[in-house]
């Protein structure tokens, strides 16, 4: 399927906050109750529609464990959006947000859209972080904020799609240099018939290439 744009996302946050579950809920509409520790990085993809345009999201789900931090840092490069996730039932995951944010700001391009996510909203009885605290943190640091549940799927679609909307608006405003792939945005073929020389344009790059095989 062809797309107008491809946006690259990265999901970050402490281990166990539900990053992989959010991705799975968004791409497969399923919930995984046991914690499958992510080692390294995993990928997901899904097509969405914004403003009548097909937009493909390529999502990088990273490992939250401290041991992977230095490798994760190299994945901010070329991301147009980031979901920064904490667990509303574990305050320490909220406390670590500043560190994550520093990391993200330092290693990403300055236009990257960051969405703050308080996950596991279905576990209201065990809540340790108030919704207002999340909102305040987001306001203070210029982030978009949402509470989600990867289990009930509440707000999961919205979190991914609203981030894409922000990116799309920035493109319309001319903030992103969309010809620079390092910004995490690729233009699909349907959008730019005038610019066929773009690397990796379109979906059929594999069959069109003769150089590597």
């Amino acid at each position: 399927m062809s797309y107008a744009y491809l946006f690259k996302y990265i999901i970050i946050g402490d281990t166990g906050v539900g990053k992989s579950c959010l991705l799975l809920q968004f791409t497969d509409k399923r919930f995984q109750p046991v914690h499958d520790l992510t080692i390294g990085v995993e990928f997901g993809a899904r097509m969405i529609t914004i403003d009548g345009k097909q937009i493909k999201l390529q999502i990088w789900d990273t490992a939250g464990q401290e041991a992977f931090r230095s490798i994760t840092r190299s994945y901010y490069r070329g991301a147009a959006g980031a979901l920064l996730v904490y667990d509303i039932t574990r305050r320490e995951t909220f406390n670590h947000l500043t560190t994550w944010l520093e990391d993200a700001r330092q290693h990403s391009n300055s236009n990257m859209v960051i969405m703050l996510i308080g996950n596991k909203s279905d576990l209201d009885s065990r809540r340790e972080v108030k919704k207002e605290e999340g909102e305040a943190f987001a306001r203070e640091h210029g982030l978009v904020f949402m509470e989600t549940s990867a289990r009930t799927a509440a707000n999961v679609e919205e979190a991914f799609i609203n981030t894409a909307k922000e990116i799309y608006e920035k493109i319309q405003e001319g903030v992103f240099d969309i010809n620079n792939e390092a910004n995490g945005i690729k233009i699909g073929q349907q959008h730019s018939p005038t610019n066929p020389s773009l690397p990796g344009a379109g979906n059929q790059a594999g069959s069109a290439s003769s150089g590597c095989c």
Partner: protein
Amino acid sequence: MSNMFSITNIKNRFISVIAPDIPPLPSSHSHQLHRGNISGAPSNYQLRMAHQQKKPDKFAYARPPFLQLLTIDELRASADHNVRPIIVPRDITLLPWGTGYAECVNSGKSEWNEDQAAFARQVLSDPTHSHPDLPYTYYGIFDGHAGYGAALAASHQFHHILHEKLVDCLELLLPRDEDAANSKQDSSFPHPSHFQRRVSKDELIIGALESAFFNMDALIAQDRDRYRDAGGCTACVALFINGKLFVANAGDSRAVLSQRKSKCIEKNNATTGAITNADNGTGAQEVFAVPFSFDHTPETERLRLLTVARLKPHLMEKQYAAMEYAKRPHMKDLGQRILCRQGTMKGWTYKTLTRDDLRMPVVTGEGKRSRLLGTLGVTRGFGDHDLLAINTGTQIKPFLTPHPEVVIRDLSKIVSIPDENNEDGDYGILVMATDGLWDVSENDAVARTVFQTLDKYPTEKHRYTMVAQELVARARGKINDSGHWRLADSKAAATVDDISVIVIPVYQYYKEHVEWEKRCAQVLQERRAKVTQSATEACEDESLLVNGVTKAQVEVEHDDAEEEEEVVVEVNRQQAQATVELEEDASQKAESSGQTDPLSAHQSAEKDVKDLIEHELSAAISALDATESSEDDKKEAKESSVTTPEKTYKAQQPQQQQQHQHHRNRNRKDKR
């Protein structure tokens, strides 16, 4: 493979690739050497490329199955050249023994990661059910160049070929009780007048590996008619069977065993204050790397290549000189004397420069930059059947060989004291990786990283994966603001090539093997008990076998196995050259499948060279056989049964099994 071609060279290569509409190269006896019609016709070239495009891939491009990158989206994300993500198996239980794996794509020299990796766990079972099954595990790593086809084919098919080869000699490999063995031996001597040689199980397994390498290469040759040009690949294979580790390698991927001596001694004489220091120090000091393969590059194989060139000068089509010069000769030097050496010469001699000396030498450059016919940086492996030299269009394949060198480690001879908890150090961690790792990492540095990382994650199930990931991360480095990849600890350039690393905890295999031996011993005993109805000494054996890693066990095993270890089979001189025949067989098949194929000329040329070399080799081998025959084997078997209280470090050195003359003479330099 960074050492194969520069980007422009790759393009050149595609222009010079020969295709079926080009007239065949002159036969080996023709003196009318010409270049082949390569540069002249661009329309021809386009036709050929169109022809190539029409042929399908034999295997759809994919990453190793255990990575579970199943969708094109995942494949595409994993091949992001700007970020070069480090991919590890998401389910580490897919690989046996907690084996670690990590990979990362190149920085843009080819669209896809052209490395491949594979593993297989199999059982050799006796169709008559009179012997216990023999399990084995195989790992392979293949570094592709000029396309992903060859490496992909090898990762899909090599283990099937290997399995066939092992099944071929199944009855000689299977464990058996002595009665059965004796009757077998008798029946294998119908004609005592023939040449007879003692062939060990090790030699059978080496032979299986070697012939599997040749067959894999022949298979890729056969597929050229039907499928898209596969390019070529190196092959590094580890086979765990019968309590031993066999590493077979062709090309410049590398297997290195990382080992660590036990820390016990240091702890005894360290004061309380010094313990931390000592520990920090020993971590680095006591770790060492043992190479389990040898790189095959134009530089390391100079002698073999020059021998081929000397024996078959027509292969060079008057374009190359089978000479080495102390300095590059120039036109202005004509008529002057210059120091040079020819063929297999070790020393240097003067000759007067003639026009012929201005040709390009067969081997140019040094180290990682050495090139065969100015084109290729690796001299053994699979594929490259259609590869032509840059600028001259000379066939390169006759200079290449799929022949692997095999290194063995007998794990039953290793002693590890259970209290020291140093099994990973004593048995070693086998790191198999493509040159993407080794180009920027010394063997010893890799060994240090292995144990540092293991120390950091002492209990994690995925600790060997962490090692693999760490090794790849270090070799890949970080990208700087101007878009160059740099090592973290210095400003030196990091690898821009594909990187793949397998990290195998050898002890985990051995543990599994000891369990299997126990079960085997039980089965055999039960069988014996049934026959003789006396199980008097059974208890003793049993108790000694319980602790798998103690010396007592090793001793018992070897007393027991001494008889079995050598299997007498009947071999005549022709059979000793089985691999040659195999290869001829394959090329004959390829020829008969397409008589008009222009490559048949090349193949017969290749065959001629191989014949010549193999004749020389077989002469050398029989000379060696005369002196180092079965006496050696016996001595070794005896040695292994002697109980030594100290660790047998000698046994930890790899045992170089290839004894071919040119291998022994060859200069094995560790490349930087």
